[in-house]
């Protein structure tokens, strides 16, 4: 499972997550979703530190975050 999962159909391409990401791994992709927005996408899942900032600022609740832990 991905660390950063972005629901592309919810994303409205506002760019707030991109402006806030401390490790700069989010970009606007070049494809369109069904509503005509270019959704955000994660370029490097392994760099994600799971800080949660993108999920906190996302106004469309499009981002869900997970992290693998050893059990």
């Amino acid at each position, binding site marked *: *499972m991905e660390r950063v999962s972005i629901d592309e159909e919810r994303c*409205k391409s*506002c*760019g707030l997550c991109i*402006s*806030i990401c401390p490790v700069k791994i989010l970009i606007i992709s070049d494809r369109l979703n069904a509503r005509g927005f270019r959704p955000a996408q994660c370029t490097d899942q392994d760099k994600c530190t799971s800080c949660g900032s993108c999920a*906190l600022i996302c*106004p469309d609740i499009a981002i869900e975050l*997970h992290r693998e*832990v050893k059990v």
Partner: protein
Amino acid sequence: MAEQMKVIYERPRSWANKVTHYCPGCTHGVAHRLVAELVDEMGLVDKTIGVWPVGCAVLGYDYFNFDSVEAAHGRAPAMATGIKVTNPDNFVFTYQGDGDLASIGMAEIVHAAARGWPITVIFINNGNYGMTGGQMAPTTLLGQKTTTSPLGRTPQANGFPIRVAEMLAQLDGPAYIARVSLDSPVNIRKAKSAMRKAFNAQVRGIGFSLVECLSTCPTNWKLTPVESMERVRKEVMPYFPLGEFKVVEGVL
């Protein structure tokens, strides 16, 4: 050693999993999410009644898995008071914008606060009437250009912006009054903690609570969502300082 996926963030269960009608970058979505998260965390989903305003949030009832009603313009606090009086075991909150609460609904909010009935108000302050196209609201800043103040708001013609949180904090009725901002992750965390106190003030039966959220309106401010957040920090926060203006004993 096996690896397991731990949840850092997932959508709240009381969120109805729909795509909202809000413009890209509008902080209404953030405020909605905080409400949904708190309703989940405090276990209130079965007894919550939301009262929705007229304004951008008019369709808010569609987005949650709890019961909702729609109030006439500005009359949400009066309606919420009625619901709370007849259903004292339910959790009743209103969600209002600045055109709704501070303009046409000013009498209702002041008297609801003065009565001090335990209802919670989430007040979204974005400085204009977003839904109808960006007209001047009571919270529009001096000099701010809107469709009805094209040369900028002036005190001679339009009066001064109203600081609702400070004004209501003068009354004896409210238990908890705070102003928060939704412009950055740190302020969103603080906003959630203020909303939790406001929800608690009602759950514990202490009294009226209101949280004013400084929000953005990228479409009508004619800025990008990121520039709008910047404007909140640079122009709005100096006039509308953040903080808790009234906390009576027992609110936590």
